[in-house]
């Protein structure tokens, strides 16, 4: 794969390349820190919600059921039932804290509901399969990154609450700032697991640009506008893709501006009032010319090349 793969117009420092086992280089975008923080906050809100619902359910069962037992005079049975509910409660709290992330990240989307909402997912950093061990490792570390400092702050006594707050906050910050210290925005759990969090792409297949032309394969019926090779050689692939974007957005003022710029550059005066047809024709002919040269192994990245 040549490194001069058509440059995408939107480039960011978060773009990485991932090579599949078939040897195809795929562009992949590391999730932004904001998206990940948002996902985490939503997940924590979901967990809290689930915990509260569980607690209310268990409490209402406890109060409702217990009354029955005591009315029937069965004290031992009442205590047994209460104990069972208590066991359920402890296990449920343990699972919510430890298994929520595991369960969802092991699913086919590799993402918790929060991650899904912001459009990111977990993947293996080496391009291989995301394994169960990776998901376990990255989520066990969450315990010291997130839950422990919070528990630490919450469990501090009154007299040393200030010091505990400071220590807990410092601890929390060290791990929260981890993604700022490495280029792939890895948190401590990602480092230990060999995973990373990437954007989950979603794109529709857009209409083909040249198919709407009435131009024949051989170009026999003359189109409204014809451009000579010299007029086409002014621009390269970058300009072609910019033009493609303008045509897809199809905003009249942008079309007019771009037509004016192109016409000015190549010294044409026609096409005034027929901007769309002018630009469609220019786009198709420029792309045909660039693609022909591409097949011959000559690429022209932009107008300066």
């Amino acid at each position: 794969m040549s490194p001069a793969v058509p440059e995408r117009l939107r480039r960011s420092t978060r773009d990485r390349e991932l090579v599949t086992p078939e040897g195809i280089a795929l562009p992949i975008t590391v999730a932004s820190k904001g998206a990940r923080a948002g996902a985490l906050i939503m997940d924590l809100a979901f967990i809290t919600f689930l915990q509260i619902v569980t607690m209310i359910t268990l409490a209402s069962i406890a109060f409702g059921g217990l009354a029955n037992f005591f009315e029937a005079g069965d004290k031992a049975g009442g205590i047994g039932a209460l104990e069972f509910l208590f066991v359920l409660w402890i296990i449920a709290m343990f699972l919510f804290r430890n298994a929520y992330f595991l369960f969802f990240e092991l699913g086919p989307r590799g993402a918790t509901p929060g991650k899904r909402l912001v459009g990111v997912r977990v993947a293996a950093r080496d391009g291989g399969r995301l394994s169960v061990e990776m998901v376990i490792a990255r989520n066990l570390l969450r315990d010291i990154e997130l839950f422990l400092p919070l528990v630490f702050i919450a469990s501090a006594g009154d007299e040393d609450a200030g010091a505990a707050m400071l220590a807990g906050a410092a601890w929390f910050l060290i791990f929260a700032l981890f993604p700022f210290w490495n280029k792939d925005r890895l948190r401590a759990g990602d480092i230990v697991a060999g995973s990373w969090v990437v954007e989950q792409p979603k794109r529709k297949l857009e209409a083909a640009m040249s198919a709407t032309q009435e131009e024949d394969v051989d170009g026999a019926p003359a189109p409204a506008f014809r451009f000579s090779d010299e007029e086409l050689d002014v621009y390269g692939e970058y300009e072609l893709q910019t033009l493609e974007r303008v045509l897809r957005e199809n905003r009249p003022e942008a079309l007019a501006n771009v037509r004016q710029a192109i016409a000015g550059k190549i010294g044409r005066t026609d096409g005034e009032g027929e901007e769309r047809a002018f630009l469609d024709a220019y786009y198709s002919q420029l792309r045909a010319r660039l693609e022909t040269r591409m097949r011959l192994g000559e690429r022209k990245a932009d107008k300066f090349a």
Partner: protein
Amino acid sequence: MSAPPSQNGAIEAAALRSDRFRFEREADWKRLEAIVVRMEKGQLRRLSDEDVQALPVLYRTVASSLSVAREISLDAATLAYLEALVQRAWFVVYGPRSSLWSWLRAFLGGGWSRSVRAIWLDVLIALAVMVAGTAAGWLLVAGDPDWYGSLVPGGLSGGRVPGASREVLQQTLEATDGSTGLSAFAAYLFSNNAQVSILAFALGFAFGVPTLMLLVQNTVGLGAMLWLFAGQGLLLEFVAWLSVHGTTELFAILLAGASGLHVGRSMAFPGQLGVLEATAVAGRRAAQVMTGVVMMLVVAALLEGFARQLVGDSLGRFVIGLFMLVLWLAYFLALGRGGEEEDK
């Protein structure tokens, strides 16, 4: 790949070779997209058998479409679509193993034992630290009984304090009548111990030092208690009482500490790999051990909550404790031998 008749018109009309290329293959792309979308939603059952069988083939077809398109097409939107589609299909094809159940079987059937054997050095170090912690606890309290209060948390001592009479100490070792409250006790113990062992593992991230400190902190109390019971001639009874669940629980804590140490050691001494790769390899191995540790703690909590409170005599307790220890050792040492290459 021949296009459906309705599309022939579009292919004819396309002016550019790259667009004709696209129209000829579009049906395959759309089909792959539909399969991927359904698999992402977890609707595996609603996929037909043909679709499931076609997935790997379609994935390769579309991946090769992308390779060709990059060579012949300058249509940025189509390229971006193909890149996104191949990436999503790649996640589905190479995603997490579909069945947690099959993973669990491989894990219990040898994967866990292999990971434990792979970190033997860390297990030995953690064992040495735990033994040293116990000895230190004993010696400290033997030298000055005032240490006892600071080594054994007040909530845990429950009458087991220096100066307590033999009868009081004996009392704490006895089985209780009936089973009321035991399951709640077991659940609480499990939740608490599991959180401590996860902490021991996670702290390994700071080069293993806090893990070792946590191991020492948890074992000096044990040493202090041993001294206390030995002083009243109850050492044997105490060890028997402890061994019921202790062989399983201390083993689990040992493995958790060893996992943390393993990660910490790989970060400090990554060897030939880069720090990141070395840590990731160690982290995945340690995660396997840790999953097992949580399971061991479930067993330990059941033993502690039920077996210990219901079995009263020291001999019975010793038998249970030793049996569990032998069971774990045999499991870790024997199972999954010869499969060492699979993990590589």
